[in-house]
């Protein structure tokens, strides 16, 4: 885990920039081999994102959950854990927001909406906290527990929606009266589904930065992440830090869920499979080198590429799957650079040792 962290936690911005350019080049090469025009394709991609106010707004909508799940994965990563369960935490956040939004609908809006959002964050945090607790108390690897909890969350969320919130004869919950939509922007963005979640995501990134780098608790968490044995020796409570960092990571993911149901859909459907926000979040976190502001930038790029891929197939007849190749190669190049460094490192160590000897 430490090695992995060193690769993705370097503070260099040159690596991702080069990786992005290389990723686009690989995508272009694949398009050329497939007989498509890469310039037209990338043009169509950016036209889809920036072409109209509606599309721009929808692209922001696409980025928002990625920002939060990316932050979630990155936060856990910084304290030495690999949160693959952001997907489940998003689902639990969604469900909590839906239940509160529907069952407490009698409350005035200024109370109901914050309550639903806070509830989503808390429940998402507690869901991740289960994995944190198991890791802290029993030493069970969080990679395994979070993956397992994803499935539990999926079926639990479906069960709750089906049993308590369902509209008979439909595959979804009742409409949620609580809304996070930025309705006053509707006229500017042509009814694109913008919501407060974007603001929350940006605030979460700032919180992430200040908490980890400017507070004592954050210092402890980073110390635990860098070397838990050293941290313990220095008198830090490793277990508490592990649980706390998983909880905060879960809060981020839970908030993403609140944004989706209260801001985008205004209802919760019964999911046939995992919605995948959390897995995209892993890619975003790695792309952003697990730095909060890097994650935000990575989410913007990832969201633009995902949203714009429909434009590629619409205007340039390029299959939308191709954008996955671009994203995949970007991540690969970020990792490959690290791998190269990592492979070289032992040789350097040896040489130093020889000199010393």
């Amino acid at each position: 885990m430490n090695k992995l962290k060193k690769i993705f936690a370097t503070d260099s911005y040159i690596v991702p920039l080069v990786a992005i350019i290389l990723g686009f080049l690989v995508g272009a090469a694949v398009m050329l081999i497939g007989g498509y025009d890469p310039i037209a394709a990338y043009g169509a991609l950016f036209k889809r994102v920036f072409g109209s106010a509606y599309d721009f707004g929808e692209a922001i909508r696409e980025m928002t959950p990625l920002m939060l799940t990316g932050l979630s994965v990155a936060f856990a990563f910084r304290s030495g854990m690999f949160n693959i369960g952001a997907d489940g935490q998003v689902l639990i956040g969604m469900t909590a927001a839906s239940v509160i939004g529907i069952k407490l609908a009698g409350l005035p809006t200024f109370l109901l909406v914050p309550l639903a959002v806070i509830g989503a964050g808390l429940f998402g945090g507690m869901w991740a906290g289960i994995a944190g607790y198991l890791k802290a108390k029993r030493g069970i690897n969080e990679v395994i527990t979070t993956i397992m909890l994803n499935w539990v969350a999926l079926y639990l969320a479906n069960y709750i929606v089906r049993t308590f919130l369902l509209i008979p004869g439909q595959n979804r919950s009742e409409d949620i009266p609580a809304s996070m939509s930025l309705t006053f922007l509707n006229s500017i963005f042509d009814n694109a589904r913008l919501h407060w979640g974007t603001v929350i995501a940006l605030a979460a990134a700032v919180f992430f930065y200040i908490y980890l780098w400017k507070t004592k608790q954050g210092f402890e968490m980073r110390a635990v992440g860098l070397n838990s044995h050293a941290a313990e020796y220095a008198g830090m409570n490793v277990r508490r830090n592990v649980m706390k960092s998983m909880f905060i990571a879960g809060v981020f993911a839970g908030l993403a869920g609140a944004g989706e149901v209260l801001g985008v859909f205004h209802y919760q459907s019964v999911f046939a499979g995992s919605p995948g926000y959390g897995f995209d979040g892993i890619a975003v976190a790695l792309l952003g080198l697990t730095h909060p502001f890097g994650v935000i930038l990575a989410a913007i790029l990832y969201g633009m590429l995902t949203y714009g891929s429909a434009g590629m197939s619409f205007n340039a007849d390029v299959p939308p799957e191709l954008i996955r190749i671009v994203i995949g190669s970007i991540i690969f190049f970020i990792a490959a650079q690290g791998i190269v460094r990592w492979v070289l490192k032992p040789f350097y160590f040896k040489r130093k040792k020889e000199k010393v000897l």
Partner: protein
Amino acid sequence: MKKIYQLSLVMLLAFTVILAGCGSDNNNASGDTGTNTGTNTGSGEATTDNSNIKIGMVTDVGGVNDKSFNQSAWEALKALEKESGVKVQYLQSNSSANYEPNLNQFVKDGYSLTWGIGFDMGDSLKKVAGENPDAKLAIIDNVVDAPNVESVTFSENEGSFLVGVVAGLTTKTNKVAFIGGMQSPVIKRFEAGFKAGVAAVNPSAKVTVTYAGAYDKPDTGKSLAATLYDAGNDIIFPAAGATGNGVFNEAKSRNKAGGSKVWVIGVDKDQSLEFGDDVTLTSMMKRVDEAVKVVSKQVIDGTFKGGTTTVLGLKDNGVGLPETSKANVSADILAKVDDYKQQIIDGKIKVPTE
């Protein structure tokens, strides 16, 4: 030891990239059949110039190569493009959040007709239709109440009744089973029709009903099928999209192993063409392609009304059994099926919907 640890890290890293790559799109990139589209318009056969008419369709998360109704719909549109020279185009939805922007893409681009394929698209389509009262839209499998939307649904219960008749008369163990994808009004119609069909010809037969909870899990379908066949059911009717492929798989391996003969009843398309006559008893066909063709033609002719719901049943050939059924179903049974079909068309039998 350290080497193994390092290797495991590399594996984990690779795993991450794979996870990230397959995150939200569950359509594995086999986009070869439907990708080169729309560009070669206006083929010579067109009698009138329809190239200014553009028809778009938005798939649900199943994608355009789902071997089921998205694919039928797209094939119908492509055939229409050849036939009448209209321009067609599709957009694939990676997640349900993309339904709305994808529909809007066509609407705002001035398409003459925009199709939403699938029950799940109802809410998004309704919103888009409300915001763009001049646009023409159509939806399959759901009813959207808006003056500019044409809704097409099917009487799956009627077609399922007929395959129920076949199952009731063919079963040797007097036990047949139904596997649904997810609980929804559409799948309920399959279930209710099937049960009524079996009961009509063989009241003593037992119908076991289970739900897989997913349309895209062939492994779940396979294990459910194994359980059901072990319990003595010899015919299974899966109405569960790709989950049903696992049922075919299980039946195939059982028949090959040479136990007692088991059957599967196909759904949506004539699945004997794909899975073979050795396991496919018959299929409950749902002619999504016909529906897409008929409504799209209305737009070309200028007779599109909107605001109406078309229910395609047995009498419109919207549902029914394929010709290939006679490979496995005896002529006596097929005669019975025709008899029941006539009775349903004449209104003598009312098939329940839930």
